[in-house]
């Protein structure tokens, strides 16, 4: 699989990237880890005229704690995210999800910014980040803008990013009370597969630890973009453990209504819908157990 020739530049820092994006225009692609882009160039589905490599832009490879929030540089690799202490302490759901991406070889080069910008409906980093109400910082030579991740994706492979813009960092607010979350991923084989369905379930208790103060569900692979399930979230929020356990089957069925899965060679739409219901139920039961019955409590 040959790659068609292109003009190539190595950017030395963020402002260099932004200058080059402004200069070379819409046929330009930035390459971070390249595990999606290089493959697309081999398959001739993306044929950029200019490629700007980000591998020397070290300033966007970080996990930083800032007061109530944690900022993740777009060029942080999945293997580093999965092992990061700050993230494991605050958002283990994200570490769990990215540790299931591709293979070890892929996670050693693929970045979280690349995963989001590639905008696969099945991107594994997206459901947990949506469930964490993550925001993304978008930079261009004209300045920076911070928007919710939920308004970042516009369709399969499509985002709001303009040709002169770069996804710079991801920002997540730290949970204020006791929280727990998990990510369940359906694959056709045990490893190295895209998710057929990805369910991220994140919940927080109230101060007293008696009721669910916040429930957030991110779903991947079952709609043109990763989505939340507001109906299910509303059904469970405010409930005690006993009330929530009773409500779970109905709430899990409601999650299916947030989806519009396709049927393809990998799975039928019906199968994907069935799995959404089952995985939301399993995830909810697991996280309720963690939050109220005391196993593996975070914060």
């Amino acid at each position, binding site marked *: 699989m040959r790659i068609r020739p292109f003009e190539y530049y*190595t950017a030395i820092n963020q402002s260099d990237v932004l200058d080059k994006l402004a200069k070379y225009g819409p046929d330009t692609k930035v390459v971070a880890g390249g*595990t999606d882009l290089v493959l697309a160039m*081999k398959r001739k589905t993306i044929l950029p005229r200019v*490629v700007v490599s980000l591998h*020397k832009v070290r300033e966007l490879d970080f996990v930083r704690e800032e007061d109530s929030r944690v900022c993740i540089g777009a060029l942080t690799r999945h293997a580093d995210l999965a092992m990061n202490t700050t993230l494991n302490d605050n958002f283990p759901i994200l570490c769990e999800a990215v*540790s299931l991406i591709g293979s*070890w*070889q892929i996670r050693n080069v693929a970045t979280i910014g690349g995963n989001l910008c590639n905008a696969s409906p099945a991107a594994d980093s997206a459901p947990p980040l949506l469930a964490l109400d993550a925001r993304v910082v978008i930079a261009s030579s004209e300045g920076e803008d911070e928007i919710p991740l939920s308004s970042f994706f516009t369709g399969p492979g499509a985002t709001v990013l303009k040709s002169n813009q770069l996804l710079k960092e991801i920002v997540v607010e730290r949970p204020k009370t006791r929280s727990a979350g998990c990510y369940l991923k359906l694959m056709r084989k045990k490893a190295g597969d895209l998710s057929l369905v990805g369910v991220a379930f994140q919940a927080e208790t109230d101060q007293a630890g008696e009721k669910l103060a916040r429930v957030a569900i991110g779903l991947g692979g079952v709609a043109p973009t990763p989505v939340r399930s507001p109906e299910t979230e509303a059904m469970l929020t405010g409930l005690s453990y006993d009330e929530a356990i009773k409500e779970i089957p109905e709430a899990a069925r409601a999650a299916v209504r947030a989806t519009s899965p396709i049927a393809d060679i990998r799975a039928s739409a019906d199968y994907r819908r069935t799995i959404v219901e089952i995985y939301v139920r399993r995830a909810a039961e697991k996280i309720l157990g963690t939050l109220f019955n005391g196993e593996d409590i975070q914060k």
Partner: protein
Amino acid sequence: MKVRINVIVNGEKHHLEVKPNHTLVDVLREELSLTGTKKGCGSGKCGSCTVLMDGRPVNSCLILAPQADGREVVTIEGLAGREPHPLQKAFAEKGAIQCGYCAPGMILTAKALLDVNPNPQEEEIRFAIAGNLCRCTGYSKTVEAIRSCANSSRNNRPSAGRKAYA
């Protein structure tokens, strides 16, 4: 258009002019004649092109040649000293080789695993080599070979699963 890169391969410095539409595996095999690195699927699935870049296993078929600039790369040729590396010996002794095509990548991934986790449990080994496909046989002998190179193969601590590394 060619791009100048500096790359250390198996401890040796190279100043190369590479085509940006070539990948690291092309440079290793065609420019440096290091054909121990295999080119299998070319799409990051089979792991036969695995090399260590700054100590970590990566698929060299998905890395654009200029992205190797400033990196340190180890291929299977760089693993052995005067004697074969213990992993190479173990693969041969345990019969973890049939056609041998996956072996260079498999052994390098195993080396990286043992570097970060000197005493991996079976589950951890299987998770680490999930990106190295063997189509001849199973993975039992491979796992056995890697396990035999662990620091203390009798110490069966509980597995940390994929949390032991990523």
